[in-house]
């Protein structure tokens, strides 16, 4: 029997028992859909994280105190700025608070920093200017608003020179940043920048710095700069030769690598969990096919009596199982892509169509059909025609 005839036979069979076919397929649909959707979400997260990290600034080194220590100071910032190949250095002292303009308020991150911050973190100014070196030195109460904050406060280009309050203190708006875009766990545009001295004086009351961002002149100098800064800071912090660093220096590549490996593991884990439901769906197909073989024992006997060979029967039942799993798989792919597109839209990382995932899902559902269809089909093919014909 030609494959085409077998497929035609399988379809006419599925038509006569639509509800059963639909319910059987549902298992595979749910399985494939959840695999496709979760892998899609995983990929979305990964590309979102990488693009966000790439947007954080090129040639970026970030220095953080190791947990528990508060070893970094503004003097360290000045000293690091003098290291060879260092293009710019910005301290970051972060807190959070309420920003108000007129009757609008928003809660956001407040970053105390200096004039180099925009360059180090790769922000572009949309209106006005960034913090100035003089303003930072003199601890002027000036503020640069991130795009999201400006939006939340309904402030536009004409807001430059006006006043907003941060935690009740009046600040002059000197600039508004261009939106960087990208969302996820943290919106890079949902923050305001004010001179680091102002944060220390009015908001945090500490001399230490949370993070130092270093922009290195070129990518080739990253390792050298990292080594030089390490030597310098160890010297400044008077660490003994045997002592471990009380700070850590991360470069962008490391961060990217770590983040994508975490996201990759997450996607794999999610996909693994989802594939369990696919196996359950496959067992559903096997179950129905076994029932079907039993129910259709007489039909099998008739077919054998009119000339079907064992392999014709085997092929017929196998193709039926395959048709179920493949149709279920295709519907599952459509549903899964829909769900991941929806999640992508809600979470804001867009929708990445991955032909690999679709191909793998199709192969997987075919495999489910074969693996869980072979046994019932063999049972059918092995039936003895005499007893099959007597079956009532």
């Amino acid at each position: 029997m030609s494959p085409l005839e077998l497929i035609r036979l399988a379809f006419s069979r599925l038509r006569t028992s639509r509800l059963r076919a639909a319910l059987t397929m549902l298992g595979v649909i749910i399985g494939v859909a959840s695999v496709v959707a979760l892998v899609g979400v995983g990929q979305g997260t990964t590309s979102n994280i990488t693009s966000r990290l790439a947007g954080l600034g090129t040639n970026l080194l970030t220095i953080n105190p190791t947990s528990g220590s508060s070893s970094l100071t503004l003097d360290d910032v000045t000293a690091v700025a003098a290291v060879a190949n260092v293009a710019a250095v910005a301290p970051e002292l972060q807190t959070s608070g309420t920003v108000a303009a007129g009757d609008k308020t928003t809660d956001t991150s407040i970053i105390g920093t200096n004039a180099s911050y925009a360059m180090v973190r790769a922000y572009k100014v949309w209106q006005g200017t960034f913090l100035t070196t003089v303003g930072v030195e003199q601890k002027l109460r000036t503020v640069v608003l991130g795009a999201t904050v400006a939006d939340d406060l309904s402030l536009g280009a004409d807001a430059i020179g006006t006043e907003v309050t941060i935690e009740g203190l009046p600040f002059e708006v000197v600039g508004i940043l261009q939106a960087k875009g990208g969302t996820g766990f943290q919106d890079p545009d949902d923050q305001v920048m004010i001179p680091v001295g102002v944060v220390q004086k009015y908001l945090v009351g500490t001399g230490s710095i949370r993070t130092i961002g270093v922009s290195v002149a070129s990518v080739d100098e990253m390792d050298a700069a990292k080594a030089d800064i390490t030597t310098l800071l160890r010297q400044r912090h008077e660490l003994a030769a045997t002592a471990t660093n009380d700070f850590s220096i991360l470069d962008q590549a490391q961060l990217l690598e770590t983040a994508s490996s975490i996201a990759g593991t997450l996607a794999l884990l999610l996909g693994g969990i989802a594939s369990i439901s696919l196996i359950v769906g496959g067992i559903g197909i096997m179950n129905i096919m076994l029932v079907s073989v039993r129910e259709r024992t007489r039909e099998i006997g008739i077919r054998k009596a009119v000339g079907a060979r064992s392999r014709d029967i085997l092929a017929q039942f196998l193709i039926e199982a395959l048709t179920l799993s493949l149709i279920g798989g295709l519907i599952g792919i459509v549903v899964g892509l829909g769900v991941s597109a929806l999640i992508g839209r809600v979470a804001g990382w867009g929708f990445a169509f991955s032909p690999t995932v679709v191909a793998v899902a199709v192969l997987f559902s075919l495999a489910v059909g074969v693996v869980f269809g072979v046994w019932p089909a063999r049972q059918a093919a092995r039936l003895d025609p005499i007893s099959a014909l007597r079956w009532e």
Partner: protein
Amino acid sequence: MVAPIIDLDRVSRTYAMGGLAVHALNDVSLQVRPGEFVAIVGPSGSGKSTMMNILGCLDRPSAGRYHLAGTSVADLSDDALAHLRSRTIGFVFQSYNLLPRTSALDNVTTPLLYQNVSRRERVARATAALERLGLGDRLAHEPSELSGGQQQRVALARAIVTHPAMLLADEPTGNLDSAAGRDVMALLTELNAAGRTIVLITHDAEVATAASRQIHLRDGRIAA
């Protein structure tokens, strides 16, 4: 003399039933020549069904040799046997054995499906067979929408659509009222007149009179 289409040579079929050997067929020899209309008659338990299964290649002899259309069935694999069966024999059963929820036309095309006949030819041949048996207006009907007599005629159409050398009919009138039964017997006689070999298996002596030769089975042996 023409070579026999059926040649049973001292065939026995023994079943083991709870350690006891039951001789359903015992040392049976029989020859049927092309064009014959033979009735195998016997009460229930005489070995009719076993005879039918052996003749139809659904079962194999325990002893003896069976040549169907010149081929010894003992030497064939299951699949080769299925092939021989589908080319040589058309079955008609007491309970029709039509595929449920399947139109008369599709029922009749089924044997051709396994002979790799093209779809167009399948439909043409099946339609012709059904029309010949007076069911030209019932092509799309499913078995549940047909009377017993009509169902048996669909089964007959399915049996002849492959142009088999021989029809093997097992109590073809057993489930029919007498009018429909006569109808089916008339069709068998007509097919035989057109040259088809027919082997009829029945317990009904009256039905058997339609045949040109009667073989009486009793306790697994041919009784004169």
